[in-house]
């Protein structure tokens, strides 16, 4: 907190107002920011706080953010329950597979879009962009039928392929945009030396595209980790359920064990939160450019 006050006077370099006039504006601004932070952050703190409470204390009055009877019991009961751990395992297997496969397939596609001229290029790229507007609910009934026919109902590959349909378009658009910013001479030099296009892609373009790859990977992981509608309808047995569906099932079964629900929510949010905190810069940059450009 001391940094705020100490940097303020010298921070006036951008606008040459009289320094004295900053103070009322700054206090008003900080007040506004705090109100906004309470709106955004208090519910999250409430979740965290309740995950360490006992069930009776959750509804005790007056409500308190810091509990007297701090306990990890909700967490231990989840981490020792094989059904609940299975939800996490499923989510990790599916989200990581989707991320790896989406990345591979989108890199290949983006290379074609960025480095080749071919008939049907324009039509195909329009198609890929427009896929993003197709409502998932429209595909629900045919997917259910299709997955049963293909024997992929209630399996990992069924969900993995489904998620790829929704993550690929964004990944391809992002990676194509990224490759377009890299000079063609880089990979053409490899081709001149007799290296094939795959060598050019993986030895030259991929290593310098790490920021783009990270941004696409985080986005893809997040979409697959959070997906609910298809996870609900394309799986049947408890051992195939993912975290979001698991949370919903628990809510239906014993809706009074709020501390466990909150602990499950905290644990279920950790992977995405960590990814975001570590890769914040790439992720936000990618998200903005993706939404503004595409």
């Amino acid at each position: 907190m001391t940094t705020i006050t100490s940097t303020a006077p010298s921070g006036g370099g951008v606008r040459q107002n009289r320094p004295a006039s900053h103070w009322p504006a700054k206090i008003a601004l900080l007040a506004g920011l705090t109100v906004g932070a309470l709106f955004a952050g208090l519910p999250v703190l409430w979740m965290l706080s309740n995950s360490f409470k006992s069930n009776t204390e959750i509804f005790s009055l007056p409500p308190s953010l810091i509990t007297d009877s701090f306990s990890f019991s909700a967490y231990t009961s989840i981490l020792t329950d094989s059904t609940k751990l299975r939800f996490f395992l499923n989510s990790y297997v599916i989200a990581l597979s989707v991320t790896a496969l989406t990345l591979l397939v989108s890199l290949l596609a983006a290379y074609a879009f960025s480095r080749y001229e071919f008939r049907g290029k324009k039509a195909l790229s329009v198609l890929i962009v427009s896929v993003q507007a197709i409502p998932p609910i429209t595909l629900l009934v045919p997917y259910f039928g299709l997955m049963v026919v293909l024997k992929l109902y209630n399996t990992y590959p069924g969900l993995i392929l489904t998620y790829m349909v929704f993550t690929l378009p964004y990944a391809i658009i992002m990676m194509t945009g990224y490759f377009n910013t890299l000079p063609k001479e880089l990979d053409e030099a490899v081709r001149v030396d007799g290296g094939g296009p795959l060598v050019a892609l993986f030895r030259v373009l991929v290593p310098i595209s790490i920021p783009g790859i990270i941004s696409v990977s985080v986005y893809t992981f997040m979409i697959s980790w959070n997906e609910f509608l298809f996870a609900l309808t394309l799986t049947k047995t408890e051992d195939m359920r993912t975290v979001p569906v698991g949370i919903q099932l628990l809510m239906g079964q014993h809706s009074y064990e709020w501390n466990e629900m909150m602990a499950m929510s905290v644990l279920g949010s950790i992977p995405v939160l960590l990814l975001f905190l570590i890769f914040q810069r790439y992720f936000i940059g990618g998200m903005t450019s993706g939404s503004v450009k595409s």
Partner: protein
Amino acid sequence: MATATSDVTQAVHRVPPAPGKAAAGRTPRRRKNLTPWAFLSPTVLLMLVLMLVPIVMVIVYSLKNNVIMTRKSEIIGLGNYGEILTDPIFLKALMNTVIFTVTSVVAHLVLGLTFAMMLNSPLLSNATRAVFRVIYFLPWLFTVAVIAVLWRLILSPNGVLNYILQQWGLISEKVEWLSSPSTALIAVTFINIWAGYPFYMVSLLAGLQGIPRDLYEAARVDGATARQQFFNVTIPQLRPIIISMAMLDVIWTSQQFALIWMTTGGGPGTSTEMLSTYTYKLAFSEYEFSLASTSAVIVFLLSMVLAFWYARHQKARD
């Protein structure tokens, strides 16, 4: 990584001064045409099987009866469409979807812009800005399932919100936010607003940082007040981003399923029924797969109209 980087630098040095099309011209013409398709084949295959085929399937289903449940289904024409479009629950779902979407999009925009403007203030140090930006971005990072449980706890009759509102004297008795017909739609819309504004905030913040300072300087020289600067400089400069974001958000929000399903399930009664929950229930609660397909096709057509507008607007910008 280190070796890869040195490969790159070597590659750069090897490039002759006049590169251009010469290198590409070496590959035989036939091979040149097939290579990109080889690269695109996984994408094309996936999109064909899991995008084009399902869309054709759902359209065919919508024209038949008894699909999926029995083998004796036959084409019955547009009958299903007549049935869906005259179903009062469908019309209620359509109405709710419009209210939910429009309210969410407007609120997302206002909140996103407010937070972005505050974060963009030159009065903030970089560290302060970074901390608040992360806090403001938080809601976007939680899966809808988590958001649903969390708000069910907060909004429950014995929950913390009712306690606070009672303490402040704003309500006299406990409100069942999610299970009374008069408040449920407001409650789910509020939750959706909380969950969705960060995406705008980030884009608008980037937009704000891209506005040239001289525009504000010029406005100040002309004696423009802060209010005039906002309406005559900031808003016009952000217009393209605002329109793109709003259109994308309309497409996404109108398709929201998980949040509604896990908070109210479309109820009580039909008070929060959306096009998505309506379609889902037809299929997986009532096993009316033909009618569900019909409703799904109608949702699809509505989304395509929105997407077409979006595409046309994007084109106009280029």
